[in-house]
């Protein structure tokens, strides 16, 4: 799955997700990819979020909606990302997934559970894409 956030020069935010889902899924199964607030979410006034992992579990918690709403209430991106992941892990200790969070100022962070996660960033102060590894 790719989940992507773009903030333009005016501060307008868009997010998107594209995936072919889980391998050997039961035909008709839909994961979290097309579910608003699960795989991605954005609000110009706050920031955005992207997610990846076990969609069957993640879509039960809408982690990206949670991240954006936590930032709206004042949380920093790192805390918001950690909080969203921990809410899932409390109920599903074997859950595998990750989120990145970015606020409208451009501060970003990631959190994960069950695997090592990487996310990519490019802004105008970088010469090329930088990959950030989120270690277990």
């Amino acid at each position, binding site marked *: *799955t*790719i*989940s*992507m*956030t*773009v903030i*333009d*020069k005016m501060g307008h935010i*868009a*997010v*998107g997700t*594209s*995936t*072919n*889902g*889980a*391998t*050997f899924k*039961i*035909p008709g199964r*839909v*994961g979290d*990819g*097309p*579910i*608003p607030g699960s*795989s*991605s979410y954005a*609000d*110009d006034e706050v920031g955005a979020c*992207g997610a*990846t*992992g076990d969609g*069957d579990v993640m879509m039960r918690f809408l982690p990206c909606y949670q991240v954006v709403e936590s930032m709206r209430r004042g949380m*920093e991106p*790192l805390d918001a990302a*950690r909080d969203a992941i*921990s809410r899932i*892990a409390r109920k599903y200790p074997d859950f*595998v997934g990750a989120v990145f969070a970015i606020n409208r*100022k451009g*501060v*970003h*962070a*990631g*959190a994960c559970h*069950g*695997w*090592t*996660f*990487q*996310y*990519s960033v490019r*802004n*105008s*102060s970088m010469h090329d*894409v930088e990959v950030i*590894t989120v*270690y*277990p």
Partner: protein
Amino acid sequence: GRSSVRLLLGLLLLRFNWCSAASGGGAEELAGTFPVVVSTWPFREAVRAAWEVISAADGGGSAVDAVVAGCSACEVLRCDGTVGPGGSPDENGETTLDALIMNGATMEIGAVAAMRYVKDGIKAAKLVMEHSKHTLLVGDKATSFAISMGLPGPSNLSSPESIEKWENWRQNHCQPNFWKNVAPASSCGPYHPINSVSAESEDDVKDVVHDSQGGVCQEWFQNDNLLEPMNSHLKVVNRHNHD
């Protein structure tokens, strides 16, 4: 004493099996760094494609256009086999696509789910957002909508790799899979709910094994003199198989 405290602190951190990272720099330093593109996984080409759109010298495209460019690049490149056509076959060997796009300025959303025969997932999602008042279209109807709005199709979304993966899975008795509480437990379907199966057939016997705390640790089926574990808790999500 101080080292003991550090050790205890380290163990506590390990106890929480989550991980996190944050970017360096404060908000003031980052305020002049727009535009910004962020993507899950090291999909560098996807981020570069989005960056080209959003940072163009003529003022740049919109954030929505940049997201479409970035995700489309991944669909063409089939990033990790988890994006676009040619990956993640379902139980019938078919690849279907899920995609979503959201405009954070207007809160408009377009999405497609389980879309068949069209390779452009994120473009189809954008068409839903821009040419309908709905949020999510699914299955064959999403396909029809996307093609009627001008996307190429119908196309076969399978690849030699996805077909080979599916054939190997069939030869492995369709394991692992996403079924639970069904029979047969460790071979290909058709599957039946266990309650109705036990009522219908005396050959299938369910036995529940308890651990020392009295909890159920594994369910077993006896079928044709074979004891087979149910695989409902098998880990099937990994770097190359995820949403």
